[in-house]
C-alpha cells in the first residue's frame, strides 16, 4: 500500500468515526505555557492585594490626596493622549504615504522613545528646562513653566507614549488599499475629502489601538517623571493641590517604608485600571464603540 498516509498497515480500514475530543500533548503544552504567564501577571497583584489591610484601603479611599493623584494621572495622560492623536496621526500618515529623504532617520527617531530608559527622557527634558536655562526663562515668561508642573508631566508622557500612536497610524494607513482612495477621488472627493471620508475611517481601528497603547503607556510612566516632575505644583491648566502622579505617589510611600498604604493605593489604582480596560473590551465586544469589534487592547 502506498499513498500519502504514512504508517499504513495492512488489513481492513478501521470504520470511520468521529474522533473523541481528547487532551493532546499539544493542548496541554499550550495550557501550561499560557497559565505560567498569567500566573506571573497575577501573583504580584495578589501580593499587593494581600498586603493591603481593608481598613487601610478604606482610609486610602477617603484620602483626598490619593484622589488628587489619581485625577492628576488621568488628567495628564488624557492631555498626552490628545497630543499623541493631534501630532502622532499626521506623522504616521506622512510615514505611510510619502517618500522623502531621511525617512529611515525619522522612523528610527520615532522608535527611539520606546527603546531608551525613561530616566534618560526625564533627564534630557530636565537639562532643557531646569531653572537657569534659557528655555526655562522663556517658558516662565510665557506663563508655561515646565519643571515640576503639569506641562512637564505631559511632556514626559507624550515623549514616551506618542510613538505607539505614530507606529500604529503608520501601519494602519499603509493597510488602506490605494484603490479605495482612487475610487473616492473619481466619485468626486477632493484629497482632504477622501482622507476624511475614506482613509481615516478605514484606518481608524488600528489607530485607536495605537492610541489606547499610548494612553496605557502614559498612565504607567514613572521614570521620566522622577526627574522632571516629581511634584506637580499648580500652574497653567492645573489648578489643583500640589500633588504627584499615582505612580510617583506609590513610589514615595514605598520609599518611606509605608508598604501597607502603598499596597492599598496600588490596589485601588489596579481596580480602576482593570475596570477601565474591561469596559473598553466589553464596549468593543458589543459594538458600542465607534471602531466596532476588534483586537484593540494591549
Amino acid at each position, binding site marked *: 500500500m502506498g499513498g500519502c498516509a504514512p504508517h499504513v498497515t495492512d488489513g481492513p480500514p478501521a470504520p470511520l468515526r468521529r474522533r473523541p475530543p481528547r487532551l493532546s500533548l499539544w493542548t496541554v503544552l499550550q495550557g501550561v505555557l499560557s497559565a505560567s504567564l498569567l500566573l506571573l501577571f497575577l501573583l504580584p497583584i495578589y501580593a499587593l492585594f494581600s498586603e493591603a489591610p481593608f481598613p487601610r484601603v478604606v482610609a486610602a479611599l477617603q484620602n483626598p490626596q490619593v484622589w488628587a493623584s489619581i485625577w492628576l494621572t488621568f488628567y495628564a495622560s488624557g492631555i498626552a493622549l490628545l497630543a499623541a492623536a493631534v501630532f502622532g496621526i499626521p506623522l504616521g500618515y506622512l510615514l505611510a504615504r510619502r517618500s522623502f529623504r531621511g525617512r529611515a532617520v525619522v522612523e528610527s527617531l520615532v522608535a527611539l522613545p520606546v527603546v531608551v530608559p525613561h530616566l534618560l527622557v526625564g533627564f534630557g527634558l530636565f537639562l532643557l528646562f531646569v531653572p537657569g536655562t534659557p528655555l526655562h526663562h522663556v517658558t516662565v515668561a510665557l506663563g508655561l513653566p515646565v519643571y515640576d508642573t503639569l506641562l512637564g508631566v505631559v511632556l514626559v508622557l507624550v515623549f514616551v507614549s506618542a510613538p505607539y500612536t505614530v507606529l500604529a497610524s503608520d501601519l494602519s494607513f499603509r493597510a488602506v488599499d490605494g484603490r479605495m482612495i482612487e*475610487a473616492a477621488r*473619481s466619485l468626486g472627493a*477632493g484629497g482632504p475629502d477622501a482622507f476624511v471620508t475614506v482613509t481615516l475611517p478605514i484606518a481608524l481601528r488600528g489607530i485607536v489601538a495605537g492610541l489606547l497603547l499610548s494612553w496605557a503607556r502614559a498612565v504607567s510612566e514613572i521614570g521620566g517623571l522622577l526627574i522632571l516632575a516629581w511634584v506637580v505644583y499648580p500652574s497653567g491648566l492645573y489648578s489643583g493641590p500640589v500633588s504627584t502622579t499615582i505612580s510617583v505617589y506609590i513610589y514615595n510611600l514605598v520609599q518611606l517604608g509605608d508598604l501597607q498604604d502603598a499596597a492599598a493605593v496600588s490596589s485601588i489604582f489596579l481596580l480602576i485600571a482593570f475596570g477601565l480596560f474591561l469596559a473598553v473590551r466589553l464596549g468593543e465586544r458589543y459594538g458600542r464603540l465607534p471602531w466596532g469589534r476588534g483586537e484593540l487592547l494591549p
Partner: protein
Amino acid sequence: MSGWEIEALESDLGGFRLGPVDLALAPGTAVAVLGRSGAGKTTFLRTLAGFLAADRGRILRDGTDVTEWLPERRCLGYVPQGLALFPHRTVERNVRYPLELRERPDAAGRTRELLERFSLSKLADRRPSQLSGGEAQRVALARTLAADPELILWDEPWQALDVEARYELGLVLHELRETDRVPVVVVTHDPGLAFSLADRFLLLQDGRVELASDATALLDAPPNAFAARFVGFENVFDRTRLERRGAGGLAAWLLERAGPEGVAFAAPGPSAEGVPWRWTGTVRSARPTPDGVVVEMLADGLPLVLRAPRSRTVPPPLVGARIGFDIDPSALCALGASRRSVPEGP
C-alpha cells in the same frame, strides 16, 4: 462635439511606457481594452482617470481639454479591480457617497432609486463584506452612476463572478449603454463580455497599441498569439517552435501555410466521406459541450484542440485513443495577416 477623445496619449512610468493611444468615445459606445497581464491596461485606465500623469497627448471631454484636471473634476466613474467598495459604509451609504459629496438635496431619493434599479433595496443595510460577488458588482455600478459620470472606466468587471452573476451583470451593462448612453471602457480577459458589449477593441502589448479596431478586424486578423487565443482560435503556434520540430508531417504542413510571423488555425474537422484522414493524433481529453465535443489531442508532438459536432451515432472518443482528422486549409491564418490573404490549400 460630444463624447470623449483621446489623442496620442502617452505616459512614461520609469521603465514602462504607455501609448501613444488614440481613441474616440461617442455616447453609448463601449470599448474593450485587451492584453496580457502587464500590457498596460490598468495603467491606461488610471491615466484616463487622472491618477497617473499623461506626459504627452490630450484627453478631451466634449471638446474641453481635461488632461491636466484633477481626478475628481473629470466626471468619470472609475471602478478599480476589486471594486473598492468602502468597507466602513453600508450598501446604502456606499451608493449615497457621491451624492453626499455634492450635497445634493435629493440624495435620499436618488439613492433609493438607484438601489431599486439594481435590485439592492433589500441589501441596503449590509456591509460590503456581506455581499456576494454579483451583488458587490451591482453596488459598485450603482455608486458609480450616482456620480452621474460621463464615462465609465471599469477594470475587470467580471472578475471572480460565477456564470449566473456574469450573465446578470452583462444585462446591466447593456442597459447602461442603451439607457444611460454613458460610454464605457472595460478592461477584460473575458471574450464573452468583450464581444457582447464592446464595439471597439483596444489591444495593448507592452504599453503599445497593437490594434484598435472593431470586432471584425480583430477576428479577421488577430495581430498576436494573445489576440488569436482571445478571439477563440484554440490552435495557435509559434513559427519558431514549429521550425524546431523539423519538417516532418503536420508541423511542416502548417509552416508551409504560415505567414512570416506565426500561425493560427481553426477548425480541424472530420474528413470528407471516403477520403482517408490526413493526420492522426492521440486523445488527451474529451469534454462534452452543448454543441458537441471538444477533444484535446497530441498530433506529431503538437497540442491541438478539435471540435467535433454532436453525434447520436458516434460516441465521443476515449482518452488515449488514436483518431484521425483533417485541417481545413481555409481556416488557417497567419498572425497579423488577414485570413483571406492565406493561399488556398493543396
